């Protein structure tokens, strides 16, 4: 394991080291200490690395992640795992707003709570939140799944396209064009699989499913010729 102390090294130097690791290198396991809320830690990773961060991170941690596993042993600031492509990102604490924003693939696990706009414009990422999510979560979600073991704030799934939302607790309110859907056996299996991948113990049968009612402008056949 390679340890990098951000009290001694800059984030840029750390990220450059992580980016330079090639397919033949065996430096796969990294530990980052003293993050002290610094921004953009471990962004843009493209190799199957395991990066542990001990402490709280700032904005955009593990953004654009592909293939790597990033674990934050603390809280995360705005834009955790923004535009994640693949791999996984886990936060043991809470995540601030816009976690996994526009994520295209991979898995984001937040053991605590996620703040507002979790999964905004998600495009294929799977997000599992052990606690609750704030308002406008999954706003304009296009693909992927958001699993919330706690409660969801106001306007859940506003202007949703095709992403699936599963919530075990209370939903403060649904956003425009978001509606509750039937929870089928296949959906229960889907949630159970995601909870298993996230290593979060919860009963998949307790979840309710929410999705797009497909009544907004872009779903209307009369507007198809506009594009």
């Amino acid at each position, binding site marked *: 394991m390679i340890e990098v102390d951000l009290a001694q090294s800059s984030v840029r130097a750390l990220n450059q080291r992580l980016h330079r690791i090639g397919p033949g290198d065996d430096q796969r396991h990294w530990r980052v200490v003293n993050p002290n*809320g*610094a921004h953009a830690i471990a962004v843009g990773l493209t190799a199957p690395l395991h990066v542990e961060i001990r402490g709280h991170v700032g904005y955009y941690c593990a953004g654009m992640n592909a293939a790597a596993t990033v674990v934050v042993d603390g*809280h995360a600031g705005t834009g955790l795992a923004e535009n994640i492509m693949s791999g996984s990102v886990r936060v043991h604490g*809470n995540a601030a*707003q816009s976690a996994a924003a526009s994520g295209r693939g991979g898995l984001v696990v937040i053991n605590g709570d996620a703040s507002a706009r979790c999964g905004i414009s998600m495009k294929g990422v799977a997000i599992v939140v052990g606690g609750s999510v*704030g308002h406008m979560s999954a706003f304009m979600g296009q693909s992927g799944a958001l699993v919330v073991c706690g409660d969801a704030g106001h306007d859940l799934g506003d202007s949703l396209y095709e992403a699936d939302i599963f919530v075990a607790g209370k939903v403060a309110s649904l956003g425009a064009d978001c509606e509750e859907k039937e929870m089928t056996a296949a959906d229960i299996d889907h949630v159970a699989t995601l909870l298993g991948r996230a290593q979060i113990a919860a009963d998949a049968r307790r979840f309710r499913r929410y999705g797009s009612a497909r009544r907004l402008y872009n779903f209307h056949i009369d507007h198809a010729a506009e594009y």
Partner: protein
Amino acid sequence: MCGIVGLFFKQEIATSALGPLLAGMLSQMRERGPDSTGFALYGDDAPPGAFKVTLRAPGIKYDWATLEGELAAAFPLARRAQLYGSHAVFTIATDPERVFAWVNTHQPGLDVFGFGERIEVFKDVGLPDAVAQRFGLAQRAGTHALGHTRMATESAVTTEHSHPFSTGADLCLVHNGSLSNHNRLRQALRREGIRFATDNDTEVAAGYLTWRLRQGMSLTEALEAALADLDGFYTFAVGTRDGFAILRDPIACKPAVLAETDDWVAMATEYRAIATLPGAAGAEVWEPRPATVYSWHRQ
């Protein structure tokens, strides 16, 4: 953009740790607000019957000694003036309104940046390290303080438009965001007797709280009323003589982090400002919820 910070020690006794810790927090917020920096310190009390007023002159070469003589001829000064370049703090045993009227008549070029039993307000154009150095922040003691680094969006980059804004005794406010109904609200508040020195939106929020407190509301009640009356984006940090409060707008566009230990409560736009505090690693850290007032009050 903008960065705001606040540090509130739970114990009543002023600590010399306050100034250096606030300077360290502000330094972390420099990228968020490179235009100007300001801070409000709650230090020692003015003697009974007196109040402190922070005056700001247009330049650092201002002849404060002459002004002190003129003020002493007009009012009983409870202490010698404390001079900080372009700013000076006078402690005067009279009704503050009389002093404001005197300044208006005799020295209209001076700005009143804050007044009250404890508050002192310093602000200037420049990066936080430079402004903190200019006013000797690292040498200042106190019980609590608020700070702001400004990236101007809606009014000019000048010292007058910098935060904190103080519109009533011992009350000050720092703001990250922008208000959209400040012109109309300023007119309404002026009719209620609230004075404004600038066209800045944040000053209107400070004036609004001053008005509500004057009506007998608690700080928490005043902030709850603000949720209905202020339109725009905001994370506010508010200081009073013995209190400290945080409010985010219902959409919570502007970031905020709170942290608390047995000794202190801290607020910052980003956690990295809090990470500089002793005990931060073991502090309870959370994001304040939208449209929810968080307040602390020393008895």
